[in-house]
C-alpha cells in the first residue's frame, strides 16, 4: 500500500487502455501533455491526439464538436484553467447538450505545491458540481484514477475527473474498479465518519489510526464520486455515528463538504466538521509544507474529529 505513485500516471494508463479498447476515444490537449504525461497517447495514436495549444475555451468547444461527430474526447489540462477559463463552454457547449466529453483536471488542489496559488485548483469541484448533467470523480491514487477513466466510459454525458500532481501512497490494487455514484467504505467506525476524496483519503485513513490510539472509532469513506454522491453509503454510516468530518483538498465551500452537508441537512442532520481550504488562496511551498500550513493533514483531521465529538 505504500508504494508512491502520482495519480496523473493513472490517468495516462487509463486513456491509453481506453484508446486501445475504443477507437472513438480521442485526446485533446492544451500544451501540457508532456507535463501530465498524456503525450504518450499521441505517440501511440497520432491521428486521435490533438494539441490545440494554450486555448482552453477552444479545447472545450472542439471537444463538444468531436462528441457531436461521434467521438469520446478526453480533454486534459490543469484543473484550474480547464474549468475556470472554459466554464461557459463546459456549461453551454458540453453539459447543456449532455455530450460525451471527459474533462481531466490535472494538478488539482493545494498539494500541487511550489507553483503557487495561480496553479492550485481549489474551486474546480464546486464550479463543476453546479452544472446539470456533469458527473465528478476525484480519485485517491493512481490505480483509482486509471479506474475512473475507464468508469467514465460506462456512462453517457460529461464527466470531470480531478487528480493531483504528486506521488501519493497506493490505496487500491491494479484490479480496482470505479463505479460512478458509488463510494468505498475503507474502514468501519462507530464514533465518527471521515468522508474524503482525492489525496485526503490516504490522510483520513492515517487519521483513523491516530483516533483509534485515542480510543475513538473512526470510519472512513472514500467517496470518489462527488457527483452523483453515494447517499446510501453516506446515510448508512452517518446513521451509526451521527458525526461526520469531511476532508478535501479544495475550498470548504461548494465541493465535497458542500455535497455532504447539503445531503445531510435535508435528511439526516449530523454534527459536522470540515478539513479543507478556508476561503483563501494557496501559496508556494513544498506539497508537504503547504498541506501542513493549511491544515490538510492526518493530525488535522483527527483533531477536527476529536473537537466535534467533545
Amino acid at each position, binding site marked *: 500500500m505504500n508504494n508512491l505513485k502520482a495519480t496523473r500516471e493513472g490517468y495516462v494508463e487509463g486513456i491509453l487502455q481506453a484508446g486501445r479498447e475504443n477507437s472513438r476515444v*480521442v485526446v485533446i490537449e492544451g500544451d501540457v501533455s508532456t507535463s501530465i504525461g498524456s503525450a504518450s497517447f499521441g505517440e501511440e495514436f497520432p*491521428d*486521435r491526439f*490533438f494539441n*490545440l*495549444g494554450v*486555448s482552453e*475555451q*477552444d479545447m*472545450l*468547444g*472542439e*471537444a*463538444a*464538436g*468531436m*462528441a*457531436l*461527430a*461521434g*467521438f469520446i*474526447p478526453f480533454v486534459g489540462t490543469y484543473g484550474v484553467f480547464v474549468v475556470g477559463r472554459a466554464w*461557459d*463552454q463546459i*456549461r*453551454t*457547449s458540453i453539459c*447543456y*447538450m*449532455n455530450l460525451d466529453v471527459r474533462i481531466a483536471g490535472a494538478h488539482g488542489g493545494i498539494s500541487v505545491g511550489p507553483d503557487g496559488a495561480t496553479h492550485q485548483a481549489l474551486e474546480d469541484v464546486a464550479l463543476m458540481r453546479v452544472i446539470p448533467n456533469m458527473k465528478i470523480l476525484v480519485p485517491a491514487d493512481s490505480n483509482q484514477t486509471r479506474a475512473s477513466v475507464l468508469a467514465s466510459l460506462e456512462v453517457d454525458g460529461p464527466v470531470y475527473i480531478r487528480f493531483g500532481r504528486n506521488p501519493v501512497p497506493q490505496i487500491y490494487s491494479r484490479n480496482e474498479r470505479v463505479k460512478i455514484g458509488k463510494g468505498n467504505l475503507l474502514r468501519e467506525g462507530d464514533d465518527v465518519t471521515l468522508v474524503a476524496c482525492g489525496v485526503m483519503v490516504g490522510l483520513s485513513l492515517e487519521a483513523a489510526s491516530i483516533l483509534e490510539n485515542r480510543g475513538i472509532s473512526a470510519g472512513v469513506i472514500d467517496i470518489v464520486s462527488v457527483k452523483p454522491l453515494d447517499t446510501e453509503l453516506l446515510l448508512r454510516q452517518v446513521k451509526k455515528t451521527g458525526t461526520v468530518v469531511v476532508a478535501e483538498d479544495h475550498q470548504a465551500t461548494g465541493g465535497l463538504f458542500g455535497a455532504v452537508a447539503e445531503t445531510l441537512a435535508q435528511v439526516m442532520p449530523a454534527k459536522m466538521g470540515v478539513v479543507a481550504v478556508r476561503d483563501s488562496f494557496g501559496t508556494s511551498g513544498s506539497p508537504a509544507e503547504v498541506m501542513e500550513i493549511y491544515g490538510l493533514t492526518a493530525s488535522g483531521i483527527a483533531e477536527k474529529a476529536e473537537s466535534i465529538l467533545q
Partner: protein
Amino acid sequence: MQELALRIRLDVLEMIRAAGSGHPGGSFSVVEILVELYWKVMNIRPNEPLWEGRDRFILSKGHACPALYSVLARRGFFDPDELPSLRKLGSRLQGHPNMHDLSGLDASTGSLGQGLSISCGIAHGNRLNKRENRVYCLLGDGELQEGNIWEAAMTASHYNLKHLTAIVDRNRVQLDGNVSGIMEIEPLVDKWLAFGWDVIVADGHSFPSLEKAFEHCREAPFPSAIIADTVKGKGVSFMEGTCKWHGRCPNENEYAAAAKEIRGDLS
C-alpha cells in the same frame, strides 16, 4: 427564393410578436444566407435530420434562431404551425436553439463565441470518420469580439479544416450600437487572411452573390470565411441599420407597419 425570404421574414415578425420578445434585427440580416444554405448549398435530408452523411450547420449567433426555425419548418423539418410557439413554456422552439428539443438543429447555441470551436470539432471528427461533409458556421460580427472565435480560427487553419466555412453576418450593428463604435473588429478580410483562412466578401442579401461565394468555398484549399455584407433589420425600413431592433418586440402599430412592408414586397 426571394419570395421564400420574404415569407420567412414575415414568419420571424409574427413569431416575435407572438412571443412578446426576440431578436428581429439579427434574424432579418441572415435570412438570405440561411435560405441559400438550406435550399441550395447543404446536403441534408429533412425527413432524416440525423442522417450521418449530412452537412452540418451551427448557428453560433444563436439569437437569430427565429429565422433558423422558420427556415427549418419551411424546408420540411417540422410543421410551420409550430412556429408561433417560439419562446413559450413547453415549446420546442426555445429562446435560443436547443438541439435536444428540436431535431434539425446540429448544436445548442446562444452563448456567443462558441460555435466556431464546435464546428472545428465536427470537421475534425468528419475527417477522422473519413467523411467529406462540410460544416457551415454562421457568426455575428459583434460576436467576433469574443476571443474564443480567434482561438478556433487558429485551430481551423493549423489543422487545415478545409471543409469548414464560416459566414460572418457583417451587419455592422450590435446590441449597444455600431460595431465600429463599441469595439472595432475591422479589417475583417485582413484578419481572417492573417489567420490562414481563404476569404471572400459577398452581398449577404443577394442570392447570386452568395451562390458564387459558397461555390468558391467548396474549392478553397483552406478553411474559408465568407464576409457577408448585410443590413441589420433588412426588409423593414424602420428596423434597418439600427441597434434599436437588436432585441425588441414591435408593438401593434409597429407590427402592422412592418407586416405591411414585407407583404407589399411579396405581392
